[in-house]
């Protein structure tokens, strides 16, 4: 079905239809994401179409003020917005699935993100649209920095030549944030991921489409079945038993603020008010980060085969 939407978008010469993929990821994540990773046509289309709209707007006729006309700017803003929806969906995916998804095209995707930021910032775009596209720039910067940190071996751009907006996000990501902020980001990310948090989940690529249930203790991590929950509880390397109570303590105080993107300050304030120790917050954040980086397909991945094939071909 991803191919169908991509084909229809190519026919329409607009990413409006393609932006529906984001809705499918949002609503049917565990079912859709492995299919998107395997098909790969979605990120390829995003890169191709994105580079095309950037080049189209750069080569368009300018008015006497040196700006593109309102219709062109509006069309560009809309198209970039549609692609940003998809990027937003990719940012909520587990890192290992993102690695699989971008295998072979990470460099092009990075170029596209950089090109999009450069085009929006160029003087030919009217100020109104530049202001309107600020959140989109932020999203593409996050996307590019995530690509650079998760797949550094594929990105050929030297670090010194990376766009300042992307570099600042990378610096921000590398700088340790205060424990409360760190816990907030990790818990929010964990709640947005609709994947089974049990290490070595035997379900092939979480394809069941079953109802995912949250741990009734911490209410942060989700499992695909009680068997997975039991296994995760006493797992050798990453037992949930050790962290569940601490996470519950944090969630009971600040859980309401995890639903809104702009409630970080309120969350931090509540943690201070309840005198939650920094050590606990840090522990929660680290546990969730480690757990989410382990989320991946457990069946023989076709991407892994492709990777092997590609390496063999390169000798």
């Amino acid at each position, binding site marked *: *079905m*991803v*191919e*169908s*939407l991509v*084909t*229809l978008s*190519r*026919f*329409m*010469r*607009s990413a*409006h*239809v393609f*932006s*529906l993929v984001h*809705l*499918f990821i*949002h*609503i*049917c*994540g565990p*079912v*859709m994401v*492995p*299919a998107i990773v*395997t*098909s*790969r*046509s979605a990120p390829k289309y995003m890169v191709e179409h994105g580079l095309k709209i950037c080049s189209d707007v750069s080569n368009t006729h300018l008015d006497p003020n040196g700006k593109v006309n*309102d*219709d062109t700017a*509006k*069309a560009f803003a*809309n*198209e970039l917005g549609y692609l940003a929806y998809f990027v937003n969906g990719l940012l909520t995916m587990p890192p290992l699935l993102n690695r699989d998804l971008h295998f*072979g095209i990470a460099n092009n995707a990075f170029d596209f993100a950089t090109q999009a930021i450069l085009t929006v910032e160029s003087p030919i775009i009217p100020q109104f649209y530049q202001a309107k596209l600020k959140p989109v720039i932020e999203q593409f910067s996050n996307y590019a920095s995530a690509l650079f940190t998760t797949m550094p071996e594929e990105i050929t751009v030297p670090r010194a030549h990376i766009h300042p907006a992307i570099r600042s996000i990378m610096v921000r990501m590398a700088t340790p944030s205060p424990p409360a902020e760190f816990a907030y980001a990790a818990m929010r990310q964990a709640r947005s991921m*609709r994947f089974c948090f049990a290490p070595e989940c035997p379900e092939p690529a979480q394809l069941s*489409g079953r*109802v*995912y249930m949250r741990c009734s203790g911490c209410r942060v991590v989700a499992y695909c079945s009680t068997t997975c929950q039991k296994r995760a509880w006493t797992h050798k390397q990453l037992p949930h038993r050790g962290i569940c109570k601490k996470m519950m303590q944090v969630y009971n105080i600040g859980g309401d603020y995890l639903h809104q993107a702009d409630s970080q300050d309120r969350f931090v304030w509540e943690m201070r008010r309840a005198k939650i120790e920094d050590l606990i917050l840090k522990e929660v954040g680290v546990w969730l980060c480690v757990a989410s980086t382990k989320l991946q397909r457990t069946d023989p991945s*076709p*991407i892994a*085969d*492709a990777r092997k*094939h*590609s390496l063999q071909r390169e000798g």
Partner: protein
Amino acid sequence: MNLTVRDKYDAEPTKKIDLGVTLDEAVSFIIEALEDPLNPRWCGPSVSACMMVIRHHNAPGTIINGNRLFGSTIVAFLTAKRSIATIETLASRWHNCECSHVAINGHCIAAAVHELTEMAPIIMTLSTLPENHQCAFGRFGDKNDVLRAMIELFVEYFEDAMRNVKPSSVANGRHPEIWPATPRDLIPYGVQPQELDFI
């Protein structure tokens, strides 16, 4: 005494124009027309005329929840597996009404809908207003591109229906009265991951 000068073509905002086709008839006609998404039964102008009737009632969410088959039909049409060539063929087929007179006359809703097909280009003009300029260039030059306009309208309707959907509600099937009730409603053909093209 105050007088407000109104444009003579500017209709009363609250006044509903009687198009001769009811909302239910328009919805059921589209469901019937797109029953086979790869080979629609009725022509593009008639489907666009029905969309004109549906658009006239500004409540996409209510319409989709009122007739769950409508949402499923739209998704099935948008996600059906097609090649660019098939889409081009459908676009050229949908450009004009090629429905047989016998079929139209033997179908009471179709007859009423086909009375409206002359007005279908109005929709096309509306959908190519400056706010939609990003895709305003029809594939047939100066002609109205019925398929493109229809897809745009379907996508808008789909987005409207999805706006307030909560993933957990869909996953749990908590609200069977709201469309989509389950993930299966959204993925009628399954996810069908295809082979990697770079192997």
